[in-house]
């Protein structure tokens, strides 16, 4: 998979998960790597960029199961960005499907 492409898709995936609930880093990495083959080390830089762009905020929470966890939470701006990316993705997928399975005219 092309590096740039993967990056964009990864952004979409992370934002969509955060849109549903707050995640801590490990949890996010774990969930995503179940479905797509990625270098898990690429997710933390992404989260850091999201933070500097104001898409996410972070907070620390103690955990009984182990060390304290840094949770990531989507902001309103982040939600906007997610929705835009989501629409782009839909369009892109539809476009590609039309090329793959559509009519030649």
């Amino acid at each position, binding site marked *: 998979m092309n590096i740039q492409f993967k990056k964009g898709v990864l952004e979409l995936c992370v934002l969509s998960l955060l849109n549903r609930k707050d995640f801590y*880093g490990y949890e996010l990495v774990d969930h995503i790597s179940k479905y797509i083959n990625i*270098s898990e080390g690429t997710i*933390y830089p992404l989260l*850091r960029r999201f933070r500097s762009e104001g898409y996410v905020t972070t907070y620390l929470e103690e955990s009984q199961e*182990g060390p304290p966890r840094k949770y990531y939470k989507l902001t309103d701006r982040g939600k906007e960005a997610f929705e835009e990316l989501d629409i782009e993705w839909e369009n892109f997928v539809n476009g590609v499907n039309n090329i793959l399975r559509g009519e030649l005219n």
Partner: protein
Amino acid sequence: MNKKEYLAKLRMYLQGLPISELEDIISDYEEHFNIGISKGKSEEEISKELGDPKEVALSYKSTIETNYEENRQERRSRTNWLAIIVGTVLIVFAISFLSFIRDLNYSRSDGSFVNVKSNGDLVRIGTKGIEVKDGDDHVSIGWDGIKVKDGTDEVSIGWDGIKIKDSESSTSRSSSGWSFFGLGPGDLKWEEVNEEKLAKIEGVKNISISSPFVDIKVITEDRNDVRIHYHGRMKTNVVPELIVDKKNKDIDIKLELPRKSYSVNNSTVVLEVFIPKSFDGNLNSYASSGDIYMKNIVGENISFNTSSGDLILENLEGKTISITTSSGDMSLSKLVGDTINIHTSSGDMKLKDLVGKLTVNTSSGDLNLQNITSEEILLSTSSGDISFKLDDKADFKIKGSSSSGDFIPNGRMKVEENHKGRFSATVGNGQNSIEIKTSSGDVIFK
């Protein structure tokens, strides 16, 4: 490699980043290792899954560079748009201000210094802006934006966005802040909306309807509930959500945008609200750039508020009817109320067959009145013109004051004074009163 080795290597490759940032990054990976270990993974495994520490460090470093580049580009496009609007306003201001200073004799009290009128045509330049009218065509550049109208087609650029309207569909673009062109037309897709909701009318005293750019149509029917039909299609990057809230005596119908910025092309979407003929409570409609159509309503307080949306109202009856708009035009016919209040900045108004105490307040909008039955009419305009058609039964005592506008009476009036901006006349027995205040607008009685 184990956790210690991994973090040491990562630290080394991250050199060059600010210390606080570097430490923060390391702590993220430390947390990741610790949680992984507590879940039973080996340090080897975690290192492998994370990937080469050199690669990881690289993605932090390139991220920072990409950020800066993106910000620079964003700032550039933001600046451009800002420059255009500011430039336009400054040009208008500069023209008028310079001439104002240069030759004080030329300026009038409303700040205009070019005011040429002939037949239906007009050219006006002043501190409030530039206005050119030629029959149905109308170009105005002013503090609330730029508006070009050509019969039924209209382009308006204002603080709340851009709207291009023709008789069938409209295209709107708006944004919070200045990044108007953040999303290009390529990001838009065709959306079809067809939603229907019902609301019970029992005990309801207040209905309010609000929409950002979608037109509102209110229609009365023989029915015993409220039907809301939100339908049409548009090419857009956002679909307003229809929300109908019913609380005690209120029904709240609103189209909500998920965010303030949007881009909509060729929209035929309309929000239709069907109200029972038996409803006689309060009705409030609010639209930003959407138009409002309302017909055959009897209510208590009926109010309208639009920014640039037009209003087409016919056959409304209420205690108070109030209309507020910035640049929207209005066409009102058969309105009956105890008081009718109209407040507009630059929108033009066509009022026909109105009954009730009428107050109209406008800055540069033109006013066209026909067949007004009222005890008291108050008209106040700055540079807008007034054209008043009085029928044979008209029975008014008319008093007017103007700075540089003219009063042109019709043949049936008895004129007492028409000199140096003061006008006084009687038509019929002079039972009711009309008071007109204008700065540079002309008043023509027909």
